[in-house]
């Protein structure tokens, strides 16, 4: 299957997020690798996804799961070779699957040769590649992101006897983007991978590239200038490739990252995700509709990226204090489940393994405006291990079958990079791909089905949205439109059956056709359109005027 040549391919994409380490181990060393990932591409093609987002796979001391990069132009030996990656990339493209890789622009590992040179002497040519200071009092107005581990954004370097700036862990010094040489070098790094054929970058931690005294050092105009420069080079030299921003910000603060369609192609909609969970628990659409009402229009070529869960904690930075308390109390009663300002759990355990709620949340993910991202393992309802440190509890090996190591690796179990989930409910004997493939009504097959329906129309990826606001606040209803095509989406956020009347007068004369079963419903007339919804049920209706 050839790659779709549409330059707006990312608007129709369904992205699968995976770390190569977690997916499949081909050489029996207990760690997933590129040959292993390549071997599972058929599975991903069958699932129906159209792009893979790979988490960092570069050489790294792995003190932050690879986000502490020590060499930007190579593959960590744990995961294979550059040639292995190249081969994987070609195989993915052969299946019509694009590959988006991670690029950490903001910082490097303190083991990176650039930092080693920079700290070696105040006169080293790379001294100015990082942000150094004689005091730890500059940029006082800047918040600390990793509150659980860091007490300052400055760290003392005993070698060069000065402080260096870091927004994340202290072993991740920030690059100095005021230095043109740094900007040039980071573009060269991106070019290296683009020339190899990668289809896009997820640029990590982009709000923090530049520091200025008297500001909070986030979202500064100078940062946007740097990003625009990267985008310009990308469009000139590699048209059709894509930049995805990781910026955990409010929608209004995120909007500038799209520029006039000349900065990022996509950005994560961070505030929506916790509100989807909140709306479900409250059985009230208000949190969801309100945040989407506050979401500004973006340029036509741009797109939001939506997700339910990812490799990080379920971040609660973009909610009010009262909302955060509510989320903690309802989704993370045990403090072990909490990390920084978030909840380190996977989708299925967050939803009490309730199949109806898992389906409803995925239904909303696939039907709200944006490109959906499915986190590896969530398509089979994998669990987590809250007793593993940091965010490792949601980064355990993929569960392929009920055999040794869940089919992930042939290594001795104690050699695996992480223990598998083994509890009776979520453990690999109960939750695995092989078993779910064989069961017609498994979550995996349901996911394949809904992805197929989603991909059957461009309206979800590119259409407008119009909320209907029925008087029953437990019902979230909207119409997605693209040209003459219209899809009515009705979600029951409640655990109980609900009656709802929809004002569909604008669509009078249309016949609603339920998209999964293709069955007709009564024609829309002048009167409010009545529907009865089962607990957590949702419908997608294609509105046809015949």
């Amino acid at each position, binding site marked *: 299957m050839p790659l779709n040549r549409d330059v707006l391919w990312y608007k129709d994409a369904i992205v699968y997020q995976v770390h190569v380490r977690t997916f499949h181990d081909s050489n029996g060393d207990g760690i997933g690798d590129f040959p292993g990932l390549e071997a599972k591409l058929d599975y991903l093609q069958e699932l129906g996804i159209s792009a893979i987002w790979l988490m960092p796979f570069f050489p790294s001391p792995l003190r932050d799961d690879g986000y502490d990069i020590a060499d930007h132009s190579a593959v960590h030996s744990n995961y294979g070779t550059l040639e292995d990656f190249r081969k994987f990339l070609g195989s993915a493209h052969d299946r019509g699957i694009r590959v988006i890789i991670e690029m950490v622009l903001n910082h490097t590992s303190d083991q990176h040769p650039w930092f080693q040179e920079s700290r070696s002497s105040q006169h080293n040519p790379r001294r100015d590649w990082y942000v150094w200071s004689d005091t730890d009092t500059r940029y006082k107005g800047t918040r600390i992101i990793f509150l659980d581990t860091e007490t300052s954004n400055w760290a003392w370097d005993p070698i060069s006897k000065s402080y260096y700036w870091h927004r994340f862990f202290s072993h991740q010094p920030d690059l100095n983007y005021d230095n043109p040489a740094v900007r040039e070098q980071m573009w060269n790094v991106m070019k290296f991978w683009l020339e190899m054929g990668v289809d896009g970058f997820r640029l990590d931690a982009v709000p923090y590239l530049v520091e200025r005294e008297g500001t909070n050092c986030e979202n500064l105009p100078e940062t946007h200038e740097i990003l625009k420069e990267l985008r310009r080079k990308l469009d000139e030299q590699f048209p059709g490739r894509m930049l995805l921003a990781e910026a955990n910000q409010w929608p209004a603060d995120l909007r500038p990252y799209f520029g006039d369609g000349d900065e990022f192609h996509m950005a994560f909609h961070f505030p929506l995700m916790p509100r989807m969970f*909140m709306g479900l628990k*409250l*059985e*009230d*659409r*208000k*949190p969801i*509709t*309100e945040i989407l*009402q*506050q979401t500004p229009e973006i340029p036509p070529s741009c797109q939001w990226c939506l997700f339910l869960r990812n490799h990080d904690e379920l971040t609660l930075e973009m909610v*009010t204090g*009262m*909302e955060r308390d*509510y989320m903690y109390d309802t989704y993370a009663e045990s403090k072990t489940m909490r990390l920084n300002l978030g909840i380190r759990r996977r989708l299925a355990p967050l939803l009490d393994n309730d199949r109806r709620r898992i389906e409803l949340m995925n239904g909303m993910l696939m039907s709200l405006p944006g490109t959906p991202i499915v986190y590896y393992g969530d398509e089979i309802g994998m669990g987590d291990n809250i007793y593993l440190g940091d965010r490792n509890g949601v980064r355990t090996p993929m569960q392929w079958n009920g055999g040794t190591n869940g089919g992930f690796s042939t290594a001795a179990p104690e050699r695996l990079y992480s223990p598998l989930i083994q509890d009776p409910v979520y453990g690999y004997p109960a939750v695995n791909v092989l078993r779910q493939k064989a069961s017609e009504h498994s979550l995996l097959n349901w996911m394949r089905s809904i992805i197929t329906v989603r991909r059957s129309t461009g309206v979800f990826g590119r259409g407008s949205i119009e*909320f209907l*606001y*029925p*008087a*029953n*606040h*437990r019902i979230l209803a909207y119409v997605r439109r693209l040209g003459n095509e219209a899809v009515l989406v009705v979600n029951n956020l*409640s655990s*109980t059956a*609900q*009656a709802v*009347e929809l004002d569909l007068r604008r669509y009078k004369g249309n016949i609603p056709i339920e998209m999964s079963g293709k069955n007709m419903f009564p024609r829309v007339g002048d009167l409010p359109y009545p529907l009865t919804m089962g607990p957590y049920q949702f419908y997608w209706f294609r509105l046809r005027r015949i």
Partner: protein
Amino acid sequence: MAEESFLTDDFLRQLINVGEVDILVGLPTHNNAKTVGSIVHTIQSGILRGFPRERAVIVNADGGSRDGTPELVTGVSIDDLRPASNPYALRTLHSISTKYASNPASGVALRTILAAAELLRAKACVVMSPESANIEPEWLSKLLRPIYDDGFDLVTPTYRRHKFEGLLITNLLYPMTRALYGLRIREPYSPEFGFSGRLGSQFLGQNVWNDGTGGAGVELRFTLAAITGKYRICQSFLGEKDHIERRSADLVPVLRQTVGTLFSALEPDFPVWSAVAGSQPAPTTGADREVLLEPLRVNRKRLREMFSTGVAELESVFQSILSPSTLAELQRIARLGEEEFHYPAELWVRTVYEFAASYRKSVISRDHIVQALAPLFRGRVFTFLMENRNASADDVENNIEGLCLEFERLKPYLLQLWKSRE
């Protein structure tokens, strides 16, 4: 056979949209536009502060207002159509309204609120007065928390009142319900009270709505039903209670709603109250009463005159209600001058008990019996005012307690009268 519902289809549709709730606030209204706006905003604040996570609804039962009262109530809804209404509210707060056609005092409002509570499966409910100008957001929590958190079924309020306010309550309703039903509830008939869903449902199913009383004073029946049903009852101190001037001018209708209701309840409740001796305090959060003492101008002279005139003009009525000795004593004090006039507690209690017994079985209509009590009550009020003219808060409380004990002491007299009327 199909029976017509007292709930309209439109109201049912609104209830369907609200769905199950944890908290229901009932607001009966009738032409309350002057006060209801600030009251619903206070209610909204009370919900957001006290119950930010709970599913809540404000239900307005309106008796046909023509001043826009229902619109003021529904205007405080918090939803995603009005995102600016309260950006900090965690969830939707519906404020819905329905109109009924009958007399606003008919009890339809409470019946509507109870029906809504049952249909919405509300766990804790509260009825708020549309006239309480000094309502505070905390009142919601004070009336609801004992139900929501502690499993009580009825929470009646206590207030900080002027010593000469609520005289019908202090001189009759409180002491008599206490003596008869055995529980010391300071405000057995209040426009504000909290109740559990289960008590509401139980009362909704009782045959009190079409029993000939027209539903008047049904709030008092509600309190009595909670006592006789052995539901868990407590009191909660709310704070200062404002005057409601217009009520004092219409004593007879008030007596019908309150005393008439109490008297009419005695017959069905006889097995309960006849077995009760003495009284027990109700669990109370905060003060069980606070008394304000600042000077208050009262037309005492007119009270005494109305008493004397009433005793003279209604002699034939009193002859069929009161015992000869009681009537003679009333006629004696009616002739006394202002300085000598004194309507003692014992005589007042005997008077009330004889009225109650007469209400049960008499040749005179029940309505006339209650009306005839009005001049006598005014005479008793005159004495209460005189006795407590210079009294401290403790003195006033002691006098009320003394009256209560008199009601309890003379209860056998009522039982004796009751049996003699069988």
